[in-house]
């Protein structure tokens, strides 16, 4: 988490190999990364569902690229579509779907190839609260089976606490790690009920305190340094 422009997305893009580090190195399991690493999935903030492919054609992409035989592909796509509740929309084109449905397509499309590391850049940022909560619940449910590493960028403090084990707060420009906060809420978590607990309230105010400082700084910098 961090104020706008602090480099949250850049961190993801560095891990993803889309941006070369000017200094230092990105290491994954001790190995230095160059280029787009295998076994890393990326769900973008922007809608990257292919508009000319139907829902199931989008979901099967990763399997098709890997040469998975058709019969197995169809079985796994059906299963994945059922998991995110998109049955009945298999043959629909993305233009006919809501933003939340499209983001669900993007999510299963990434998860179906079972990446070991999942990068998510504000994937639910553009959705309304209700849809957002539903997708958070679905993400948690999908994640519970495999428990892969997820690096999740968000603006939304509630979302961070609901989903994360650790929240890393970045400072406003230049982006540095300001604070690493361990979220001690038990799993499995219910995205609605968790909000009604005292522990949640406690986590929220602790993190809000740290984050609030950075947002205030970023705001001040924006007002005085508009020309910079």
């Amino acid at each position, binding site marked *: 988490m961090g104020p706008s422009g602090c480099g949250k997305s850049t961190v993801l893009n560095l891990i*993803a190999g*889309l941006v070369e580090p000017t200094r230092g190195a990105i290491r994954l399991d001790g190995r230095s990364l160059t280029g*787009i690493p*295998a076994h*890393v*999935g*990326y769900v*973008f903030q*922007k809608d*990257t569902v*292919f*508009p*000319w*492919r*139907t829902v199931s054609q989008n979901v099967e*992409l*990763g399997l098709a*690229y*890997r040469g998975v035989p058709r019969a197995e592909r169809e079985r796994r796509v059906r299963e994945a579509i059922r998991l995110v509740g998109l049955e009945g929309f298999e043959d629909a*084109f*993305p*233009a*006919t779907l809501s933003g939340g449905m499209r983001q669900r397509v*993007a999510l299963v*499309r*990434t998860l179906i*190839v079972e990446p070991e590391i999942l990068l998510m850049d504000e994937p639910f940022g553009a959705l309304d609260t209700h849809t957002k909560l539903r997708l958070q619940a679905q993400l948690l449910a999908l994640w519970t089976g495999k428990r892969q590493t997820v690096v999740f960028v968000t603006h939304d403090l509630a979302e961070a606490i609901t989903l994360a084990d650790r929240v890393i707060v970045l400072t406003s420009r230049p982006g540095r790690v300001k604070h690493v906060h361990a979220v001690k809420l038990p799993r499995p978590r219910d995205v609605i009920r968790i909000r009604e607990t005292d522990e949640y309230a406690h986590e929220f105010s602790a993190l809000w305190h740290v984050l609030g400082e950075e947002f205030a700084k970023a705001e001040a910098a924006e007002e005085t340094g508009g020309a910079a």
Partner: protein
Amino acid sequence: MSDRTRVNAWRVLILVLMLGFWEGLTRPAVTKSVSRVVYFVDPFFISRPSAIWSRFWHLNSGAVRVPLWHLLLSTLESTLLGFAVGVGSGFVAGLVLGRNARLAAVLHPYIVAFNSLPRIALVPLVTMIFGFGLVAKVVLAWLIVFFIVFFNTFQGARGVDPDLIHAARFLGASERQVMRTVIVPSALAWTFASLTPSVSFALIGVVIGEFIGGESGGGIGYLIIASLGSLNAADMMVALLVLGLTGIVLALGIHQVEARLLRWRPEYQARG
């Protein structure tokens, strides 16, 4: 009466009125003497519907050497061939240059120069090289269609959303798979959108070719030029009407194909 039938009723009414006036005004108004017939509008220039109608059947009968439908087939054949060759070559060229910025930069001035040349100025040259037949007409249609499709595809191939390419790479796509599943479909969307104007322009190219192709070139364009030679307004009107209808049918047909191919686009999703 629904809105649609009302609109159609007005359309029919306008057509009937136009034909009525045309027919009425080109009839003899006053016959002063046997030697001089006075018209409101002289049918020598614009003929009249009844004459056009009878010439239409006459031109389709065995009384003429090359029947009208034969001429129409010749025009259609050249148009569709030129269209197909133009779309195919324009697409490939647009895709290659669209994904190769260096090559596009090098060739840019030549493309602009060639495209600025009025295509009609090339007609004599094409005739010199390819003669008066089918090939010359196809080449003329191709010369026009190629650039329309090329520029559209070029735009589409160059403007492929880089995030879609990234998304494909993260899903494990090889370079070839990126080309096949992202770049080609993105570019095709633009190519398809240029099909409807392309088929109309292909027809223009062919008719120009037929104007100078003479009898060996054949086609509706030849009938127009031949009726100019014989100062036969009725035949010319027949040719123009047939040509107009052909243009409409071609454009509507290609538009159907286009709507089918682009059915994933929001603007083509109005049910159906």
